[in-house]
């Protein structure tokens, strides 16, 4: 068995080892397959492990390296896909009994782009049911566990992606984010996750939850690793109607430019209501670190932020529209919680949906105004650390209020980066949000902060 250090190395470090022949993609892939075999029966991060495919990918990477092809920093890097990304010839379940046998004949655009970059696909990672429900005990697919505390949820809906990264089973993962499903698990698992600008990364070949809120994006253990993945994923795709033709900049090179002179805005209203004291402490210490690094920090106003809850009316309505036929024909194939949530969408009127979209426009104008004054916004990512399974299985638990949804409403790029731990050893996270298509600044702030701290170097004991 390879050392723990190998499994928590960065993508840059692995690439360097490949180039000096200190490690081979096949060796690395085999080590990861062994680790998955050892850890995943407990963590349940994977729905499907694609060992043959992974070894074939690794062999191709090794051949490319052998002929001196080092053009892609992702060459030979083992990753996983959230199981709502269609994979040609490979089971794609959406975490749902409805799709328990679905083998797509197409590949998602994101999958195609990561394959072109030379990655090694280790398998498909569990998602909350259709990225919205929770797998209760007895579900067709067991829920992933949080590697920091097996009694706790890893967050969702990219639950397997978060758990697999925290457990050192993959170097990167595809997530998706409709109301925080990349940033939430990143926050609760102590890793980094980026929801790019709406339209930046293609959603083609990805199961829909809510058309106007769905985003795809990368999850990894460091901000730099997220930048490498984003570089491969970003760009126009005619197969996604929302895809943008905005040029793709270099996301990696500017990471080291620091934050001196950058302006960080803190919207104090809404984002701190009900925030856990230890989460708030970690956040305030992160602000102090950013100040020490040369950024200026000031409070900003988002006048209509208290209306951000309208986000849920949009998500419920669109999710019901997407699932309506299956719900009416096969209600028994949906988990009870998901079925209730989807049916709630049927109870929202057309007029209420339109007003929710108008509120969205107000919120977008507010945030654009705030981002003319500052370069990024900073908030805690999740108001509370990871909840226990016992808490979320309680019928009265409800849908937790989050700090991430407002940035799905506005489509702005938003990054989660670890900023501390609670006394019980649970990760807490800083959320950094920027202007449309300014992932470069968002990543730069996150990377600079991350490199000044050691939160990302801590790993769970497994």
């Amino acid at each position, binding site marked *: 068995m390879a050392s723990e250090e190998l499994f928590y190395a960065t993508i840059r470090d692995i690439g360097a080892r490949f180039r000096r022949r200190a490690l081979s993609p096949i060796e690395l892939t085999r080590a990861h397959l062994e680790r998955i075999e050892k850890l995943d029966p407990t963590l349940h991060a994977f729905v499907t492990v694609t060992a043959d495919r992974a070894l074939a990918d690794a062999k191709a990477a090794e051949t490319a390296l052998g002929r001196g092809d080092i053009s892609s920093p992702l060459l030979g890097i083992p990753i996983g896909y959230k199981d709502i990304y269609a994979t040609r010839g490979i089971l794609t379940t959406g975490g749902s009994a409805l799709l328990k046998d679905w083998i797509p004949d197409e590949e998602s655009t994101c999958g195609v782009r990561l394959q072109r970059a030379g990655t090694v696909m280790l398998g498909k990672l569990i998602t909350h049911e259709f990225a919205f429900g929770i797998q209760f005990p007895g579900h067709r697919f067991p829920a992933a566990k949080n590697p920091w505390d097996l009694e706790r949820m890893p967050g969702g809906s990219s639950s397997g992606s978060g758990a697999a990264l925290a457990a050192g089973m993959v170097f990167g993962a595809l997530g998706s984010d409709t109301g925080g499903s990349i940033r939430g698990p990143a926050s609760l698992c102590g890793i980094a996750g980026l929801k790019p600008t709406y339209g930046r990364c293609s959603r083609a070949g990805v199961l829909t939850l809510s058309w106007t809120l769905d985003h795809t994006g990368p999850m990894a253990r460091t901000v730099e690793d997220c930048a490498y993945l984003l570089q491969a994923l970003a760009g126009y795709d005619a197969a996604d109607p929302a895809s943008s033709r905005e040029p793709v900049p270099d996301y990696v090179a500017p990471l080291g430019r620091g934050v001196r*002179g950058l302006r960080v805005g803190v919207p104090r209203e809404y984002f701190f209501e009900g925030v856990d004291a230890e989460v708030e402490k970690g956040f305030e210490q992160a602000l102090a670190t950013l100040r020490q690094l040369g950024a200026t920090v000031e409070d900003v106003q988002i006048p209509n932020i208290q209306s951000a*809850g*309208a986000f849920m009316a949009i998500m419920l309505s669109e999710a019901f529209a997407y699932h309506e036929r299956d719900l009416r024909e096969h209600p028994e194939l949906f988990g009870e919680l998901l079925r209730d949530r989807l049916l709630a969408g049927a109870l929202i009127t057309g007029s209420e949906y339109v007003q929710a979209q108008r509120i969205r426009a107000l919120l977008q104008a507010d945030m654009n105004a705030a981002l003319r004054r500052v370069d990024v916004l900073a908030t805690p990512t999740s108001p509370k650390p990871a909840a226990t399974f016992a808490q979320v299985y309680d019928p009265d638990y409800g849908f937790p209020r989050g700090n991430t949804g407002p940035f799905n409403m506005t489509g702005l790029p938003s990054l989660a980066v670890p900023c501390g731990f609670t006394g019980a050893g649970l990760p807490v996270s800083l959320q950094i949000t920027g202007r449309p298509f300014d992932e470069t600044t968002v990543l730069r702030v996150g990377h600079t902060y991350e490199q000044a701290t050691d939160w990302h170097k801590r790993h769970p004991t497994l």
Partner: protein
Amino acid sequence: MTLEEVRDRMKAARVEIAENRLEVVRRLLTDALRPIHAMDSRAHRTLEPAVTFETVRARGDHGQ
């Protein structure tokens, strides 16, 4: 929103939700619709529901 309103909406939408799950749905809807019902639509006559994404960056130095 009352449970009776939830039942009325279910009837109009032709969907069924188990009686013991109605309270969960009521709370979810109440939270989602609160800002919508609080909004005076007449105060924003020119506001349209379409979403656009501004790609032109504001003027400024953006730091180093």
